[in-house]
């Protein structure tokens, strides 16, 4: 079977009908930036560490 034809073809996955609401997928889950400091549980801003 020709791989050339396969490489030119788009997958049918995530081909939503017109007007369909966008659904979050595993690849669209927001990931916090590594440089942003995350607050620790039970700690408040300005509290001495």
């Amino acid at each position, binding site marked *: 079977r020709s791989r050339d034809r396969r490489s030119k073809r788009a*997958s049918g*996955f995530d081909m939503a009908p017109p007007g369909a609401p966008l659904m979050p997928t595993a690849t669209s889950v927001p990931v916090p930036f590594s440089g942003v400091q995350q607050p620790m549980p039970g700690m408040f801003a300005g509290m001495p560490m």
Partner: protein
Amino acid sequence: CSRLHNRPTISPTLLLSNMYQRPDAGAIPGQDPNMSQMDPRKVQEHFEDFYEDIFEELSKYGELESLNVCDNLADHMVGNVYVQFREEEEAAAALNALTGRFYAGRPIIVEFSPVTDFREATCR
């Protein structure tokens, strides 16, 4: 099917209902509804494209033991895809990942299936 089927809460096998639509079945807009006028090679090509899509996507979630596509034209089980993973956890990951998504403009309907031996699989 009018029979009451057992729907397990966990299984290594997933059922993706009515996912495959034959291009010669007349159900796809723009496709030729007359089977006799459809080139059998085009039908085969369409099926292989579908199979590759499914195989590549499902392989992301685990090792596949079996992948069966019903390409019959009768109503019963039409277009059903049965995929058996090696592990139940892999099937669960695939189910979670596919829920709420679309394939070729249609929503993917996915659930666990009790079928584990396709040689013995009958509607009962």
